[in-house]
């Protein structure tokens, strides 16, 4: 286990190094950050002063060294947009995205288990066809479109939910629902198909001839065996969310999360904030994935990882 962990940490380290380099190269490619950070009317003297203050006038290699140092210590410079430490902004918006992810993807995870399992009980049956159809439709609808429709219906017409922004739990309902829909569809399809596979396996027949109840067969026997692929996909859904795939939902609902902030950083040409977000996210994703692997090992001791 220790060896495995070390291996994974080493791999993660490489990923972070790659991300760091890629991010540095790209953010410096975008053009001159100084020009973009200052208003159209700024004078040359102002630009020079700004470059001096932010260290953007130094040789690119020196900037890179500083940058790697910042990345390693997680102490990035100030955001150009908000003129305060990028990390402060990151820590402010991270919980917002986590809340959205937990509510949306978490809800999808729970719901998909039930939907998928009940659909798998009788493949081709009415419930199965209903679930499959809904899942396919859910996967086919563009997320932003769903978001807009929900706003139109629940906020504008019914006036039961707030249109956008972040506040009490009511503000969470529509973004979470919109975020959940494709994940719910994917997870449900996975649960359904792996459950169908599993229910055709010999050990399920054993359980049947043992006279075990249907619920015991579904939840005690089969569920355990689909847990690894299921949790893998759950992990993917959460990773996707962290990796910025919440950005569409966040911008439709003006939800001040990571994706939204990253988008703002791009629009406002704030390379310092953007690189802080991207690198911190890579760290989180790497750690999260290592955690998942450990979890899998606990669920299924047969798995050999690393």
């Amino acid at each position, binding site marked *: 286990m220790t060896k495995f962990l070390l291996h994974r940490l080493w791999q993660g380290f490489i990923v972070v190094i790659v991300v760091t380099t890629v991010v540095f190269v790209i953010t410096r490619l975008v053009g001159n950050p100084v020009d973009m950070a200052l208003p159209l009317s700024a004078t040359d003297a102002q630009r020079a002063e700004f470059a001096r203050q932010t260290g953007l006038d130094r040789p690119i290699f020196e900037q890179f060294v500083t940058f790697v140092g910042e990345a390693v210590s997680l102490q990035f410079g100030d955001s150009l947009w908000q003129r305060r430490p990028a990390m402060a902004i990151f820590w402010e918006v991270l919980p917002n995205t986590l809340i959205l992810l937990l509510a949306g993807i978490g809800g999808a995870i729970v719901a998909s288990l039930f939907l998928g399992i009940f659909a798998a009980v009788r493949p081709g049956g009415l419930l199965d066809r209903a679930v499959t159809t809904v899942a396919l439709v859910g996967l*086919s609808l*563009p997320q932003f479109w769903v978001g807009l429709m929900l706003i139109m219906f629940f906020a504008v017409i019914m006036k039961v939910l707030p249109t956008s922004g972040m506040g009490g739990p009511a503000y969470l309902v529509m973004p979470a629902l919109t975020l959940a829909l494709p994940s719910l569809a994917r997870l449900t399809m996975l649960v359904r198909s792996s459950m169908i596979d599993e229910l055709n396996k010999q050990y399920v027949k054993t359980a049947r001839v043992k006279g075990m109840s249907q619920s015991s067969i579904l939840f005690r026997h089969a569920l355990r065996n689909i847990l690894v692929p299921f949790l893998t996909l759950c992990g993917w859904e959460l990773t996707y969310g962290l990796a910025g795939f919440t950005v*569409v939902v966040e911008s439709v609902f003006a939800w001040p999360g990571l994706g939204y902030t990253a988008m703002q950083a791009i629009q406002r040409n704030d390379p310092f904030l953007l690189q802080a977000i991207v690198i911190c996210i890579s760290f989180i994703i790497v750690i999260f994935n290592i955690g998942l692997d450990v979890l899998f090992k606990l669920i299924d001791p047969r798995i050999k990882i690393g």
Partner: protein
Amino acid sequence: MAAISVYGADTAPPKGRRWELLAELWQDKAATAGLVAVLVVVLASIFAPLVAPHDPAAQDIIARMDPPFWMEGGSTTHLLGTDHLGRDILSRVIYGGRASLLIAAAVVLVAGGFGTMLGLLAGYRGGRTDSVIMRIVDAQVALPGLLLILLVISAVGPGITTLIIVLAIANWMIYARVVRSVVLGVREMEYIEAAEILGCKPGRIMFLHILPNLISPLMTLAILEFTNIILAEAALSFLGLGVQPPATSWGLDVASGKNYIFVAWWVVAFPGLAIAITVLSISLFANWLRVTTDPQEREKRFARGQAGALRRAAEAKRSAA
């Protein structure tokens, strides 16, 4: 599965197999509808200049945000109404399919080709090659994908080529993984060993003996990826990082119309619907195809259909009695 062998199944007449397939497809109404819709969309895109009633770029400043023909104020000149610049929505939807489908096809080709190559290489060569390639795959999978896509597009500037390259870079890994796993399975088979013993060159073995095994899984994967790319293109366009005007795509039309959704829903609804219908149709058909190319699944589907028919017949009898 029951240990039952059906002798003589292989003696079924080979003639008219295509018609048999079509008849089988006809049984699945959803898949049939899907196929028809996909064909309509593809043909309309190819022959857009012949099909579209108007020039998609022609602005009619008087007729801005006209509703579809069945609504009050709509007219048959613009069947699906006009957008915020007075352009014919039907024509734009027809033309928009070109970019959306083209981008999706290009991305699938590029990413699929690249991923398949690497997957073949990794699976066939094994050893160091395999572990290096798979490490790259793992590493890229762990990257914050969309953030990097946003980063790259914001650096290079949006456009169709950028979009294709970026989406291809972000999507090749899955092909490599699938291909590698299939190759690993096939490699162990006797006929490959036989071919090796006979002295076939690795390239020949790879393309002649291994590649055919990949066609079915790759087809299914490519079709599903195709739908993903259509949605991804729409999402990026929604964020203003996709196709740029004066080019047009469904995603772009949704994006440029998104602000008007509360006053002129049709501006967003029809391109959005085009996306949804295309993706849904492809998925329905792909689903059917996946089952059809898998003999076991195909049998199960047939049996389920039979069971359903029997059940319905029994119910009908009961209700009649």
